């Protein structure tokens, strides 16, 4: 199991592109941690997971950033 970290202040789409590139080469079971200042990102990532067959494990706050932990359960196709 590999843990990937995306730490970005950028607009959600650019974070999602980074997530897509990780998902494309990831093995099911890999964990992705997204650190973002955007509160809406947590629900957006939850919806992304529902659509793509992946799972949000936790959402926490660390200082000014939201930390969303996800497990990649599906393969990109």
């Amino acid at each position, binding site marked *: 199991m590999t843990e990937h970290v995306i730490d970005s*202040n*950028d*607009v959600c*789409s650019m974070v*999602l*592109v980074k997530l897509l590139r990780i998902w494309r080469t990831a093995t099911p079971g890999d964990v992705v941690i997204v650190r973002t200042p955007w509160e809406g990102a947590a629900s957006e990532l939850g919806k992304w997971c529902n*659509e793509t067959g992946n799972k949000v494990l936790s959402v926490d706050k660390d200082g000014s950033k939201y930390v969303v932990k996800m497990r990649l359960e599906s393969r990109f196709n």
Partner: protein
Amino acid sequence: MSKLTLLLADNGLDKLYHGLVMALDAKSMGWTVKFFVTSQAVVLFTKRSQGRGKMKMGTLARFYVNFSMKRMGLSSAHEMLKEALQEGVEFYVDEIGLKMIGFGKDDVMDGIKLSGGVSFLQEARDSDVVVTL
């Protein structure tokens, strides 16, 4: 697989930005994305512009938004357009619109195809989501 078709007909950078957000979000979920560019928007897809242009707002507001985007570390439309092309968003520029502003096929950014209204209508009919900007 779901499919999104976008139609951009305005040369304001803010509308291009919204379109690119939709395109990249859809791509991140594995959707097929077709992005049609017509009318005044074609100028944003020339080799000279490459997604660089002006937001349609007052000078002070534009200055403030540009400043805020840099301060917050947000990507520009130019950077997002490069990512969209790399991720396989298919862009189609209206050939007539291009001719109308004095440009030709060779002036369009690499990786962008020419098309017309019939292509848009057929792609839009076969799409799950259609967004016009």
